[in-house]
Structure formats: C-alpha cells, structure tokens
C-alpha cells in the first residue's frame, strides 16, 4: 500500500536512504533532517491550513504482508517555493544565409524559470527486488492519484527532475562543459554546496544569462544533453508513459531531463474515477514473497487498477484486480483496513495498462 510517511517510519526510511538502490533519492542521510522531513510531510497531510505551496509530502510504499517499507517518493507542492526554480529549456533556432546557400538549425539552451511554482515530484526509491513487479506503478502513479484527488493543493502542472549522466567519481560531462566554467568548481563540490538538485536563485546568478549555443560545447557534453542516468530509468519511463514531456527542460547542473506536463492530461488522472465497492468474500491477492501483496508483472493476465481513498489525511492507495464491467470493486478485510473504507464511502480507481499490452487500452 502507498500511504503518508509517519514518524515511526524513521528507521526504515533511514535504511532506504542509505541503500539508494534503485531510483532517485532526495532523502537526507542524517537522521535529524529525515525526522524533520517526516514531520513536515505529516503537517502537509494533516494541517487544516490553506495550502501555501511550501508543503512537501512524503509517501512510503509498505508491503502489507510483512509490514516492511519497500519504497518512498515525495511531492513538493510548488517548485522553487519562495524563490525561482531554474531549468534550461531546449530551443532551436533556424538561421539561413541564402547567398552562401547555407541553412542552420542551432540548438540553444535557455536559462529559464518556467517551472517555478509547478508541483514537483521528488525522489523515487524502491527496493531493487521489486523493480520488475507492479510495485513501482503503485508508488509512481499512486502519488499522481493523490495530486489528482487534492488538485486544489497543487499546481495544474507537474514536473520531475531526473538525474543526468555523471559517474561515481563526479565526472559529469555537462557540468564540466558549462557549470565548471562559471562556478570554477568540480561537480561534487557544487552538488555539496547546493544540496543536489533544484539550484537556488543566487546560484543561477553565476550561470550565463543568455542562451548557451550547444554547438560550442564539447561533443561529449552535447551528447549528454537530456540523457538519463540509468538509476532514473524506472521512474522516468513511468512518467513518460503518463504523458509527461521529457524533451523540453534540462537540469541546470547535470543536463538531465526534467519531465513536465499538465496534471489534467496525466493518464492516471484521466482514468481515475469513482467506483462502487463492496466487501468481498475472501482475500484475493496473490503474489510472491518478495513482492508481498504486489503482483509480479508476468504473473497472469489479471487487469489491475490503482485504487485510492481520495483523502489527504489518511491517504492510502492499493493495487487491486480490476472489477468486471458493471461490477463493484471487491474489497478484502485487509483492503478495507488499508483504505480506511466504510460502506457508502467513495473510492476511486484508475485502470493500469497491462505490462505487455496486447492493444492500446486508452485509444
């Protein structure tokens, strides 16, 4: 199940933060900072205050059978809250010299803060053993269902930064070609200085204000533009599948792709609708021990849907077998407990695509 992080998740989250197995972690490695982040998230999930944009929500993915935390992901309500949020935007300029019979399509990078105020998906981390299950879908799309459910607390646009190419020694072709020349420091040093992603306003003051002409960059740096670090493959591919655009914006530091799109056009948000539900006769869920209640991808032909309770305080989402057309969603006792559901309360469901789709479902 996907739910809000709680203070008693601290130890398990510490373990996840240190593992950094698969995905992008934005969790602090220090215990106190992590506890603070959980507290901040808890306030965002439960406070009666109007949304200010400063809220940061932290989700955990919990194996219902074992109770173990197997993943985490977050949302920042508004990117660059209280300051600008910088990106590079890809632009292409065509210039022609008729007298020379020459024509040129010039790729430029444009320092912008288009994404300021946009809701930002932060971190995405899942137990490596679950990478091939549907668990990542629950973690990624469940978070989007939450945004759809609480639309008034979020921007109508979302974005997600994704790590660019950098090796463990801190060599990053994009940084070496751009940031290095204007910061005068190596990538790891700059990363330390800025806490990783999301450069602050004063950092951008050091960067070139006009467009960067890509043809002037070393070839390796040109090639790395918009290239994804392998650790980001899994979350990035799901966001592209949701309909986010991954070709327009780049991270200022490492040149990684920043996916962006409108909430209303996300696949999960479009498919998500209220669904009748009823207590079912038995526990329906099957799955291998590693996945707990999360089914393996190639297990069978079951159509799955993402079910959520639409709440902010007490939000929970599960993957359940999709009901037959016209039939209600059947809930086991465990499902009912996980969702905090009572008969007569609404639930929402969004159909997942089969992992090996025979046909396009959303034609």
């Amino acid at each position, binding site marked *: 199940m996907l739910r809000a992080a709680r203070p008693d998740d601290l130890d398990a989250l510490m373990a996840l933060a240190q593992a950094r197995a698969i995905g992008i972690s934005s969790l602090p490695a220090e215990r106190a900072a992590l506890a603070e982040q959980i507290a901040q998230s808890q306030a965002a999930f439960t406070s009666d205050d109007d949304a200010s944009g400063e809220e940061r929500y932290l989700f955990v993915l919990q194996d219902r059978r074992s109770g173990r935390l197997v993943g985490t992901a977050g949302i920042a309500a508004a990117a660059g809250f209280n300051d600008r949020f910088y990106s590079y935007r890809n632009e292409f300029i065509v*210039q*022609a*010299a*008729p*007298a*020379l019979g*020459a024509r*040129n399509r*010039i790729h*430029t990078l444009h320092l912008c803060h288009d994404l300021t105020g946009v809701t930002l998906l932060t971190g995405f981390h899942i137990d490596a053993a679950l990478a091939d299950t549907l668990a990542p879908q629950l973690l990624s799309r469940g978070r989007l269902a939450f945004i759809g459910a609480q639309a008034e607390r979020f921007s109508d646009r979302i974005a997600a930064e994704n790590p660019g190419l950098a090796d463990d020694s801190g060599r990053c072709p994009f940084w070496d070609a751009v940031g290095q*020349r*204007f*910061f*005068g420091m190596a990538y790891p040093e700059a990363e330390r*200085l800025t806490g990783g992603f999301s450069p602050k306003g*004063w*950092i951008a*003051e*050091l*960067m*070139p*204000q*006009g*467009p*960067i*002409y890509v*043809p*002037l*960059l070393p070839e390796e740096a040109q090639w790395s533009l918009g290239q994804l670090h392998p650790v980001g493959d899994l979350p990035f591919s799901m966001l592209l599948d949701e309909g986010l655009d991954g070709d327009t914006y780049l991270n200022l530091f490492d040149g990684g792709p920043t996916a962006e799109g409108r909430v209303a056009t996300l696949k999960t948000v479009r498919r998500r609708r209220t669904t009748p539900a009823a207590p079912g006769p038995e526990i329906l869920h099957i799955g291998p021990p590693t996945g707990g209640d999360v089914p393996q991808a190639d297990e069978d032909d079951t159509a799955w849907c993402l079910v959520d309770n639409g709440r902010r305080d007490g939000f929970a989402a599960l993957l359940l077998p999709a009901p037959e057309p016209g039939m209600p969603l059947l809930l086991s006792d465990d499902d009912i407990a996980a969702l905090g559901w009572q008969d007569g309360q609404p639930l929402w469901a969004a159909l997942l695509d089969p992992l090996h789709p025979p046909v396009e479902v959303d034609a």
Partner: protein
Amino acid sequence: MEGSPVSPGFTLRAVTAADLPTLLPWLRPGAARTLPLAEPTTAATATTATAGDGSAEHWLLVETQGAPRACLRLRRAIGLALPRPWYHVGCVVHAAPALQLQHRQHTLLLGHDHTGASELADIAWQRTGRSLAEQAAALQALVQGAIARIAAQRHQYAATLIVELPGRRDAQGHAPFWHGLGRHFYAGDPEAAAERFGPDWRCHVAALLPRQPVYAAFLSDAAQAAIAQVDDGSRLLLDTLWHAGLRYGHHITVDDGGPVFEAEVDALVGGAAAPPTMGVEGRKSL
C-alpha cells in the same frame, strides 16, 4: 587622379590596371582584387546622406623610384549597402556574494557597430626583397598618405576611421578563432567562401552566426587566445597604425578574430579638433 608626394621619396597615387600584376600577389586570400567602379557601388536605399559626390572607394598605392611598395583601399562609408558584422568584446561579471564567488567573463556580441565609418582596407605591401625598415617606411607613407587624402576631402569621410587587422592564422592559413566559433555555425570552408565572394563573404556568413551574446568561455582555448590578436605577419602593420593614432576599441572581425583599430578622424587629421557640442553618440547622426 595624379600622384601626390607623401613621406620623403614616396608618392601616393591611384592604382591602375597596369599595377595589378605587381599588387595582386601581395593581397591576402579573400581581399578585393578589382579596380573600384568609377561610380559609388554602395548607395541603395540606405540613408547615406554624405555619399554621392565622388567615389565610395579609392584603391591607392605608394611608390618610390617608380616602384609600388604598398597599397590599400580607402572607403568613405562602409556597411551601408550590405551590413558588415563585427563582434563587440564585452565583459560581464557574475557574482554570488553568498558563495564569495566572482567570475569575469568575456562576451562576444555580433553587431554592426561601425556601420557608416570610413575604412582603410586590404592594406598590403611588398615584403619579398625588402628589409623590415623599408617595409615600415612604405607602410607609414601609405597610411599617412591615406590620412592626408581624407584630410583634403574631410567632408566626404565619416567621424570614425577603422582598420581591420588580420587575425592569427596557422601555417596552413587556418584561423583558430574561426575553428573555435564560426565553424560550428557554417560548415563550409571560410577560405573558399572568401575567395568566391570576396570580402563580402563575412556579411553573408553573419546571418548564420549567434545573435545573442556568446560567452568566450565556451570557445576552445586556442580560439579564446586568438581574440583580438594580430597575425605575426601583420605585426608591422599594427605598429604603423598604432603610431598613426589608431587604437583597438574592443571590436574584432568575425572570421579570424583580428582586432579592429579605430580613430576619430578629426584627431588623426588634426582638423576641427573641437569637442562635440552636446551629443556624443556619433553613430546616431549618421
């Protein structure tokens, strides 16, 4: 137009067809190679109020003992028919006080800042068989002769006189500045284009070059090092122009990055040396 004596022993006169066999071998690739038309070649619809009475361009040489030694083209107002590009070399400081970081960066901005200026162009001279002292004397006679010519017809010339100096090139004639910048925006061979289109090729290629300021930091080290540097073979020319009172004013050519030297014409000719009455943005009035 008959010759006029300049420095002792030298005479300045217009180039004629008979001089071409002597002069052409002196010229750099891409230099203009034909006699100027009798009528102004510029004109067009541009607001060239002062053009019209006389030739837009003179090709002049100095000779001594009947032998040509150096030549140049004297132009009254450049860039009017076909805008000519240069980069202005600017400077920006990026500072992040919170980080105690401050970096000074050079920028190159494409523009036509010297449009309407007068020009000494394609300065060339006999090198083979001449001592450096002889070459220097010829160049000095040439430049001073051209300045005297301007002084004699002051109203036909602009407020500013410029000279583009050849930028750094390697033994094969390739410019590291072009290799680091222009090449990325025009894949063709610049020497071939210069041969084919003459000096105008830079006006054409400008349409392909970056229109927003380019940070010099993105250029290769060799290209950065070549900004506003004069080719070894033109050291003597730099010296001559400098002593004549022309100075680098932070503009460079778009092909080889050579410096553009400039001077107030009035200061050069010792003419109407009065300060501007009120307006000082001279380019406005042109």
